């Protein structure tokens, strides 16, 4: 029954199924099946749509001024105008571009840093691991927001690049720790030992054998990092540490605070960007519920009978 199985005339077509694609479709299907992540995906899709088509959707330019100052909501200006005489709705629409892109870019970069450091940290042993351990712990114990403010103040007026850099520097450590723990459990699996027996070099074992088995944890880490990046970006802008000449939700808040919008009764100036930030962060958090269901199939099965 060993080697003498007759070779059936199989269809000689290239039998390679497009499995990468199949994997992604299944991932999307699982996300869609969970009502929480479905809601998150819808909200996120709305924001991305608005950000891409901002020039078409916005009634006026982002920093087009010259309208009546501090006007209340009207048919011409749905959310009113700012103290500098700009249209608030247009600013909100254009502002989504900054928040969405900074959130995703900073989230992506800090996830990449976390992957590279976390995986090699989990795989190597001995002195090297101790050094990385020390550095990561250093970043973990320093309180995030003060560090961000100090770095931002130090890198005066670097604009968006600076903000992204600050967020990445302060945001990678936690993800690295989580990925390291997962790497350590995976590295003791037989298939990793088997890869060593196949003569694979260390980097290949880490990135070709171990990494693909952590996709859902990495996806979860990415959405988490993007959420905190969006919040940090708005926070830094609000504190006036970013470039206050660009239009983003954070700077709308900053200028509204500067012109005492709340005292003049223009609460919508604070409320509208605040709500947008909260909704965007919420959508990513909701998507993460779905990602959880991918990494933990038990959550997929529903309640017990």
């Amino acid at each position, binding site marked *: *029954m*060993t*080697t*003498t*199985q*007759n*070779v*059936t005339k*199989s269809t*000689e077509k290239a*039998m*390679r*199924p497009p*499995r990468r694609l199949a994997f992604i479709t*299944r991932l999307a*299907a*699982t996300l869609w*099946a969970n009502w929480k992540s479905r809601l998150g995906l819808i909200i996120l899709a709305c924001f991305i749509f608005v950000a891409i088509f901002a020039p078409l959707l916005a009634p006026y330019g982002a920093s087009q001024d010259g309208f009546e100052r501090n006007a209340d909501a009207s048919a011409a200006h749905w959310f009113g105008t700012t103290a500098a005489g700009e249209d608030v709705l247009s600013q909100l629409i254009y502002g989504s571009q900054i928040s969405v892109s900074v959130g995703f870019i900073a989230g992506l970069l800090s996830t990449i840093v976390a992957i590279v450091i976390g995986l090699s940290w989990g795989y190597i042993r001995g002195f090297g691991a101790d050094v990385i351990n020390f550095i990561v712990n250093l970043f973990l114990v320093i309180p995030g927001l003060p560090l961000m403010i100090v770095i931002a103040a130090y890198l005066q007026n670097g604009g968006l690049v600076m903000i992204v850099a600050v967020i990445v520097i302060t945001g990678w450590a936690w993800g690295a720790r989580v990925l390291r723990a997962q790497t350590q459990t995976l590295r003791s*699996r*037989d*298939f990793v*030992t*088997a*890869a*060593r*027996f*196949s*003569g*694979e070099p260390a980097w290949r074992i880490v990135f070709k*054998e171990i990494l*693909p*088995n952590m996709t859902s944890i990495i996806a979860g880490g990415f959405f988490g990092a993007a959420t905190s990046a969006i919040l940090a970006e708005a926070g830094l802008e609000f504190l006036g540490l970013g470039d206050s000449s660009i239009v983003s939700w954070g700077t709308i808040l900053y200028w509204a605070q500067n012109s005492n919008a709340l005292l003049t009764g223009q609460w919508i100036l604070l409320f509208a960007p605040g709500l947008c930030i909260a909704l965007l962060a919420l959508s990513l958090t909701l998507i993460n519920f779905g990602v959880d269901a991918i990494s933990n*199939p038990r959550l*997929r*099965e*529903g*309640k*017990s*009978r």
Partner: protein
Amino acid sequence: MNHILEVKDLSVVYESNGFTALQAVDHVSFVLEAGEFVGLVGESGSGKSTLGFAITRLQKPPARTNGGQILFRGKDIRELDVESLRQQRQGGFAMVLQSGMNALNPVRTIRNHFIDIFRAHGHVEKSRWDARQIELIEKVGLSKEALARFPGELSGGMRQRVSIALALSLEPQLMVFDEPTTALDVLVQQAIMTTIKSLQKSEGFTAVLISHDLGVVLESTQRVLVMHEGRIVEDASSAEILQNPQDEYTRMLLSHYADPRAEVVELPGFTERASRDGAGAGKASGTTAAGTTASREGRSADSAIVVDQVSMVYPPPRRGESAITAVDDVSFTLEPGESLALVGASGSGKSTIAKLITGIEKPTSGTVKFGSLDVARLGRGQIRELHRNVQMIFQDPYSALNPLHTVEYTLTRPVVNFGGLRGPQARRRVLELLETVGLAPVEQFAAKLPHQLSGGQRQRVVIARALASNPQVLIADEPVSMLDVSLRAGVLALLEELREQWGVSMLYITHDLLSARLVTENIMVLNGGRVVERGNTAQVLQHPEDDYTIRLLDAVPNPARAWGAAV
């Protein structure tokens, strides 16, 4: 007739989003009489555990009963609400799980586990708690000192005994044992089965023993239900199953048992394994490179592995405890083309020896040599050289393959790394390897992912990967212990055939004496890190001298022996 449990037309289905529903139990009907000891046998995926969970109402989503009745003392337990279900766990039915040893709460003492149950059901007066605990723990063969211990302080076998005592404390009328001994060592396994048997006699409960091992079941039960693909294919008394099995499937299962001590050992795929005294080694080197594997071009093993007075001492796990000597002054030589069995119970140091030989661990003292390489003192490049020649076949084919890589990728890596082949050449070699291990049509298997393969097929891929570097030595660490009985013979036959054709030497690590008898010429029995007996496999197994070897031999489940007296 005193029916305790009547299952009528029961069906259980697994349903989850995005996957097709799986009918695990398919219109099953059977009756249990009070006081019976019944075995439920089937291979993995036959639905036996699902059935066990269903009749104790412990199944969880995505499993769902979708038809039939389970009448326990005339009442359908599928109708019970949560509270009455909880109440009837006392004096009703109980289950002992496969991982029962992990079912204990690690931060609570054994005593507290009993008290929890007494509290929840209130069936023992508070003044009698102590007495009852001691009575129960002694029933399962433990001393009362165990009550004060934490689960972590007890061995796996002791913990399994505790979980049996916990189940007993509810005075159940029906006990379901789900593979109660599978995760345990062979010798412990036998002791626990003896305890279960005598408890069943003295307490008089009805017992269902779920197991994949027909041998174990036939040795202890009166009646056996054989399950295959969700259906019960045979329901007969144990003696009848042994002497006159009706179903094809039962017959196939039975054919895979034999006595390793017999003069002639036969299994499907293996014939005439009568005497391999000395001639075996000659055969191995004499008739190499026959058949399809000409690609190897006659390169057979030319270097021996020499293990010389090796000891391995692990530092104490906790302060104040003594260091653990895993391997104690072991010497042996694995000659080119030889196949040597390394046999022992768990903890005997056999896997540690495998690690020492493959350079994964370094011995505390002594030397391991492969040809001119000193395995204990290898640099990075030399480790690679060692792995080119010494390859390993892993115990668990389910974890030895990366679930995300196709068979082709898995096999291409060693071909590229050791053979230096690229592109179409590498692919041709991969397909050749698949053909060698009997996975045809090769093109289709190359494109598959591990989860699309059965356990036996996976193990063949693992073997193919080990062969990819044209090794001289194969270390097989319990290569068939995770496989279903019906798949074992095929994998063993493959190993045997490859060894004879390719002339590789093999170190076969196992606790299973029957498989050792089939594929090896020489044997070494390890106990507590020491070699207690060595010699020709057939001779050692037929005329064992050491006490420990005899005990290991007795622990091999053998239905024919159990019923030999009665027949």
